[in-house]
């Protein structure tokens, strides 16, 4: 028990030094963009923007506050998935400001990441919330004016594939993405058939031959 307490103290210390910084990922081989981000052991917020309008917007149209819950229990409604979110589709007006609070109810990391935003405002075209297990993160972004469907997902290995995929439609959107639980089918689909399918197929084919032969011979006579 003493050890657990020590680690709690360590965690608090870790939280304390997590002042927001303008971080440069200069020596990260994997990342070439300059992100505005805060990182601590509860997770991170990347490219949050609550005041700069996209070039094509004259003014903010309105504000949204979205609370998203994530965890394996939200996968219950979608057979064949393991990781889940309570919403898989979001609809907002062009030039609106969206504040997302991402609540992670699992004991592992999860992410709420949106791609395809204008790169001059969001390095890499993304806005990213990442919550460590049992934590939540809040961040804000402003969408441009065009009708477009944006990909929202958790980019941990296999989390999108196994359920953590959603879409954000600005205005009328630009159609549905593939493989959004509750919205669209997968582009590559699993086939669910009994193991003895070949026996069934053969039996049906034989039945077809027999029935046809009987019909023809009965007409002849």
């Amino acid at each position: 028990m003493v050890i657990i307490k020590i680690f709690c103290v360590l965690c608090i210390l870790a939280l304390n030094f997590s002042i927001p910084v303008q971080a440069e990922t200069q020596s990260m081989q994997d990342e070439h963009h300059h992100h505005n981000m805060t990182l601590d052991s509860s997770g991170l917020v990347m490219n949050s923007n609550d005041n700069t309008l996209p070039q094509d917007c004259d003014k903010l149209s309105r504000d949204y506050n979205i609370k998203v819950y994530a965890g394996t229990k939200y996968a219950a409604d979608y057979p064949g998935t393991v990781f889940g979110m309570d919403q898989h589709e979001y609809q907002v007006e062009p030039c609106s400001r969206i504040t997302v609070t991402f609540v992670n109810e699992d004991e592992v990391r999860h992410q709420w990441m949106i791609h395809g935003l204008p790169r001059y405002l969001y390095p890499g075209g993304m806005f990213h919330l990442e919550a460590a297990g049992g934590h939540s993160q809040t961040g804000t972004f402003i969408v441009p004016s065009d009708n477009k469907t944006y990909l929202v997902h958790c980019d941990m290995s296999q989390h999108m594939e196994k359920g953590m995929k959603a879409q954000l439609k600005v205005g009328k959107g630009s159609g549905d993405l593939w493989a959004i639980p509750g919205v669209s089918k997968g582009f590559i689909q699993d086939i669910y058939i009994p193991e003895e399918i070949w026996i069934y197929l053969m039996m049906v084919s034989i039945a077809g031959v027999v029935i046809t032969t009987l019909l023809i011979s009965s007409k002849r006579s």
Partner: protein
Amino acid sequence: MYTRWLFFLSILVALMCFPLQWYPMALRLQLGQWLGADEYRAPPMAKIAADTTTELPCPEDLLNWRDAQTIAGVDVRHSPGCIVDNPNAVAAFVRGTNNVSQQILMASGLTPDAVEKGRDLDGDGDPDEIHIRLEVVELNGGSPESDLPTTQYAIAPGISPGFWVFAPKMFGMATENFESSKARSMLRLPSPAIRVEQGDIVKITLENSHYMPHTIHFHGVDHPFVDEDGEGNDGVPVTSEKPVLPGSSRTYNMQPRQSGTMFYHCHVQPHVHIMMGLQGLFVVEENRPNNWLQTLNVGAGHVRVPSVAVTEKFDREYDLQYLDIDIDLNNRIQKSNDPRLITRDMHRRYDITDAKSDFFTLNGRSFPYTFRESLVVTKPDEHIKLRIVNGGSTGIALHTHGHKVTATHYDGVEAKPAARITRDVVWIASAQRVDLDLETTNDGLHSYGSGIWLLHDHQEKGVTNDGIGPGGNVSAIVYENYLQENGWPKTQGMDFNKFFTAAYYRKEVPVWGDLLNGKFSDVEFDLWMLIRLLGLGLSLGVMVALVINGINKRRP
């Protein structure tokens, strides 16, 4: 009436087209006596080799990761290989990710709680409370959006079997960036080698970020069966605890009293999960003052911050992990996306008793990639510590060219000096560990001098990629004077570019196509023989049609 003539004509054509080589031997001999030898006709020409795209054998080290450098007060050694570990991550593992700056965390990609280091309990100048957090990552998995694998990781050119690995806790995307589907460099096979000090109070939290249940079993590491609260601590679902479900976590506790080279692996359906890559080295280092350890060695290989005890006796240290792969198992994660179908295919339909290995890896790569990052580099008159685990399904017969090595420890237990054996083939059974002392004294016994000396499993299938050689776990012991500035060995043999093509390992490139002006190249087909065979087929078809026609006519 013409049908009868057509029938005879087709028989004649069939006989003429029938290849001479297929005639009965007696008939051929008789014909030869009557007509003499056949006239010379040149066999087909050599095929012009197809253009194959070659990967760069040794990509440039743009971020100077290979250099010796001091980061956060940690002296990270020069790493001589071509592709090496991120020194920022190495430093963060030594100091503890809770004790380094944001800048170093950003540069390493690690979360602040990936490796937490706490108090110095015995006052000897190094931390004794260690908390490691590991996630489970799937490499080359399936997707409902594309038939290409996701979070891609190649063990050799064009070869990407599915894997599950334990990985350090990192923030951000699993891939290099949004446009890329390649796994970021720290997400890789094998699972990281773990290093703790004898007597450390160690916590290892498994944050199961994967869609299947897993555990960690600490093979050979001193740990209690249950922890202080009576919770299972052995990682074995049959006896000590329930598996850690997707999205859940469990913390294992231990304070190892004995040092040595040990092993850790998942113990859920172990015949599948261990072979999928959920396994790594676990080293308990001897207690010394000021012993700041590199807690994780990502991808195993060169230890850039060796322990105090190792530096007392050795000049360098390498972690070597061997694993063989049955592609029939590993590719099952790519065939379906529904976890119910995947688990059925992997845990019920797959039968390991029928398994046969196709690929053989050293530190998660097969030749030629082993030459990029798993060379054992040395100078004359050195002692190198090799910590070896065989994580595979069959034993390996590890052979050192040009050297006889001495086994100092078996399964983490030191052999008495009188019982030590010096030899050039070391047998390592599944899950066994052997510590080797590689001595590079040029005395004709321990070393035959400088050079590029192969290091490989001498069971011959182990030096192939699915039967194509050179491949498998072939690496080398390379003396520094045989190493180029960029870390690539000064080989004097065959052109390596050929081995850095996916086509070569798809079996599309002749193994000696570039030797002797194409004397061993692929061959064009014989057009004349092809025409004859087509003629034979056609005339046989005509005959069959005529026979059916004749039978039909005769029917009343």
